[in-house]
């Protein structure tokens, strides 16, 4: 693919994803919703992702604490360890790492599932049976991603902070009460709110891109692989871009 057709393809893809997102919002604000399927998807996307998110968050909190200690020790600032980890986890690492894990787990599974449904004509079968496949398959999955990602981030933050408490106590002694007090002393409303709001957008991006790639999949079984793979790559990239924008907006609004 030469440069010119590469740019053309990129612009077309951006346009198509924008149109897909617009179609989602039109259907999202429609009174007719597939509530049963939304709840089922919340269970699959939220509850079934908990173990992976939990383990990753635990390791993240522990490693961050253990790795940061030597540097803080050099400056005699080990007592700031809980506050530093709390700020890092809640403001940035928790939301972004959870979103990236979800992009890998949820994005690929949605891309592969819808892609496989497309190439085996299941989406066409749904359409000819008089059921709107966009509402049944896409709106439910994207909605579940939007609702569940913030929940997963809160759980991941909590587990990460607990792992950090264990990490602090590996080479020192700090009671839970003091740790807890130091963590919440260092956090303010302006740390939590922007970080929490952006997780809804991360959920939207992961859901939309996974569904878009799967729903528009073609080229048979090869297309299913391409859909799953590009759902992960593109949604991970979009998570970083959204994070960058969110940080700038929070900075402009004085949430720093």
């Amino acid at each position, binding site marked *: 693919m030469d440069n010119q057709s590469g740019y053309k393809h990129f612009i077309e893809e951006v346009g198509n994803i924008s149109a897909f997102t617009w179609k989602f919002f039109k259907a999202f604000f429609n009174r007719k919703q597939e509530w049963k399927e939304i709840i089922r998807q919340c269970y699959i996307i939220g509850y079934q992702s908990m173990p992976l998110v939990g383990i990753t968050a635990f390791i993240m909190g522990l490693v961050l604490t253990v790795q940061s200690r030597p540097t803080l020790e050099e400056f005699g600032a080990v007592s700031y360890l809980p506050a530093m980890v709390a700020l890092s986890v809640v403001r940035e690492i928790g939301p972004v790492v959870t979103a990236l894990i979800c992009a890998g787990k949820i994005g690929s599974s949605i891309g592969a599932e819808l892609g496989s449904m497309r190439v*085996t004509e299941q989406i066409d079968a749904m359409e000819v049976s008089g059921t709107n496949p966009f509402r049944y398959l896409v709106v439910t999955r994207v909605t579940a991603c939007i609702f569940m990602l913030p929940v997963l981030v809160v759980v991941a933050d909590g587990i990460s902070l607990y792992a950090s408490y264990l990490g602090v106590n590996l080479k020192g002694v700090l009671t839970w009460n003091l740790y807890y007090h130091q963590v919440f002393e260092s956090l303010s409303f302006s740390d939590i709110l922007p970080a929490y709001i952006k997780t809804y957008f991360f959920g939207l991006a992961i859901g939309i891109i996974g569904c878009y790639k799967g729903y528009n999949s073609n080229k048979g079984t090869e297309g299913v692989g391409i859909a799953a793979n590009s759902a992960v790559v593109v949604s991970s990239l979009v998570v970083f871009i959204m994070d960058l924008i969110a940080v700038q907006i929070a900075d402009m609004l004085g949430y720093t």
Partner: protein
Amino acid sequence: MKEEAVVVTNNLVKSFGNNHVLKGFNMELHKGENLVVLGKSGSGKSVLIKCMVGLLYPDNGSVKVFGQEVADLTVSELDELRTRIGFLFQSSALYDSMTVRENLEFPLKRHLPKLNQKEVDDLVMEALANVGLERAVDLMPSELSGGMRKRIGLARTLILKPEIMLYDEPTTGLDPVTSREISNLILEIQSNYKTSSIIITHDMDCARTVANRVIILIDGERYAMGTFDELMKSDDPQLKPFFAAL
């Protein structure tokens, strides 16, 4: 007396880029008949029936189903029309994350939400009995053979008692015995449900068994039309290859 036409295509044109698939195709499906459309692979047979249910839209010409122009229908009108049409896909298109029971319940619960679970169960078992597969009710699609998948696909399509059936290569990939069973099932459906059907196939045994009328599609146009025997006896060199294996 002329039979009532339930599907009419008039000068139907459909292209994909430079590939001109249908170039002014005309046909009528009469009420209660089985119409077989024969043609080579890639000749536009599947495109034709996809235009009838609004999965594809023609570039030119018209497709009327029950007197309604498909391209002019609103989304809700099209959904309404689709409940009167059954479509059996070549791959059967069973929802592979659902059991056979859930596959059959899916259209029922969406279009007849007032039915209680007992009534739904009865209709599911009745549909499975019609295709001789009651024992498969709790299996997953991945546990079914090709022939069983076709039958379950048929049962799911028939559960809403459609007036028109569109079969996209119903016997492709099946062994001769199972193919014959599916062909006989198509005949049973015609007589039990009084459906009007279009059967897209290259299986000449299937065509001979089920067809009341046959249309031969060549180069995107209706090349010939008649009963199976009339076309088989024709001396036309374009038609001979279709019947050569018989």
